[in-house]
């Protein structure tokens, strides 16, 4: 870039400082207050871990946490398998139509509320009893699209002639996949899976509509939503801090793996 005057550089630094303050102050306040001793949600009265301890004894939150884990693990595993195969299938073909692209792209941009009501209408029309299984069915829809897009990005630079070479040398299609294709795309597959896991752990609206009646299939975001509507408590601050830490860790890891891909 061209030489900049001192004033310009100062202004740019100020802009960055303000934007980062805007992005991080709300989160920092939330995290700080989760360690607040007093019961008042916003006034600081000393450091304490008691809200984390009280979380551990809250059975509603624990069961919601377990439900979230089940939904996220099962939907991630399914979506990773389906999404990876889809990515390979799409990229192996030389030409593909716009309809196929639109079908794969749609789950990523369709408003949550629309997919949520569509699945609710669909499941109730089939007279399906809703619960964790219907949330899983729903989560796989958007998760597989995200896995597919991450894996496809990796496959763009893939040399398909090595697959042909493997087949020419007598390897079966499965052996070729396991020994040739998979090792190359593995970082992208794991990155996609971590992304899917985080999306599933954080997803609220679709789960809310496809969980059915009763508390048995309440997920963590559903639990958080009902707690937030009730009011501010230090317990939500503690829970929020844990959930943020988990998703940020998973996605930082995912990002690392993807960076590795670009570096190669």
């Amino acid at each position: 870039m061209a030489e900049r005057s001192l004033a310009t550089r100062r202004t740019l630094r100020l802009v960055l400082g303000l934007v980062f303050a805007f992005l991080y102050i709300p989160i920092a306040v939330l995290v700080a207050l989760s360690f607040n001793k007093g019961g008042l949600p916003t006034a600081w009265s000393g450091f304490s871990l008691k809200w984390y301890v009280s979380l551990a004894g809250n059975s509603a939150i624990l069961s919601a946490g377990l439900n979230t884990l089940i939904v996220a693990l099962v939907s991630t595993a399914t979506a990773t398998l389906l999404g990876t195969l889809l990515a390979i299938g799409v990229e192996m073909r030389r030409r593909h139509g716009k309809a196929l692209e639109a079908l794969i792209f749609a789950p990523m941009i369709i408003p949550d509320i629309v997919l949520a009501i569509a699945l609710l209408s669909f499941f109730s029309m089939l007279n399906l009893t809703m619960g964790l299984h219907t949330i899983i069915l729903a989560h796989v829809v958007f998760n597989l699209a995200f896995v597919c897009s991450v894996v496809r990005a990796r496959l763009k630079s893939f040399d398909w002639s090595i697959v042909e070479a493997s087949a020419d040398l007598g390897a079966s299609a499965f052996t070729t996949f396991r020994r040739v294709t998979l090792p190359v795309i593995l970082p992208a597959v794991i990155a996609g899976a971590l992304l899917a896991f985080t999306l599933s752990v954080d997803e609220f609206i679709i789960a809310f509509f496809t969980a059915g009646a009763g508390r048995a299939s309440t997920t963590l975001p559903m639990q958080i939503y009902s707690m937030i509507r009730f009011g501010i408590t230090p317990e939500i601050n503690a829970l929020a801090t844990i959930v943020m830490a988990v998703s940020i860790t998973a996605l930082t890891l995912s990002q690392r793996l993807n960076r590795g891909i670009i570096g190669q």
Partner: protein
Amino acid sequence: MAPALVWLTALMVVPCALVLALAFFRRGIYGGIDYTFTLENFGLVVDPLYAGIFLKSARIAGTATIIAVVIGYAAAYAISAAPRRLQPVFLFFAVLPFWSNYLIRTYAWIVLLNREGLVTQLLRWLGYTGEPPSMLYTEGAVIAGLVYNYLPFVILACYAPLSRLNPELAEASRDLGASAATTFRRVILPLTVPGIAAGAVFVFVLSIGNFVTPALLGGGRFQMIGNLVYDQFLTANDWPFGAALAMALIAIMLLVLMAQAMFADRAAGRAAEATGGADG
């Protein structure tokens, strides 16, 4: 790839087609669905009462988009002007909040804006003694929440073209006598329009159909289209009308995406012309 396509068809295409079909039926007397063809649900969508909510949603989404683009572009510009080795770090931390739970990021604003929140305490500390200002449960709070939630994406979208910008173009412009402001307006800005458009479309589309932010930061009676759809399905039990609203939402979204695609094509043409001209 077949299982994935079957999954997407069975659990996305078919349900969405079902919602489209639902929109043409009547609401049953007891809340169910009466299978007689009607267009009155779409008539209701353009009824002043509900059209008003669409306009309000569009206004809120539009305001959030403009604010997010201005802040996001400034941030992306500042990042692209930072030393090369620091840029990925800044970018990483700009996008990091985007990866935490949406509900929690929205909740953080309840903590900030409530009557005894940080903002009120800050005002008190500055010597303000009156009633705490009511900031939460206002349209402003909803806009702030939307800008906060989607800003990282705008920064990312605007940074991409800014970082690829050829510095010689700006230098050439300055050498030919253009001021810094003119160089920005005539050279830098036009070349980075695709990033701005991508960011803007993203914020607008996600904001106009948003349900969580208006529900949490706008208060119980605050309604945008998303909340209206929610109510039709979970409280008012008028699924056909809710389906018509959802289809109207999808139509708006598709229009915006199509406009962006057309705009991007034209902008790409102009950018090619501009760079070609500079090289020649």
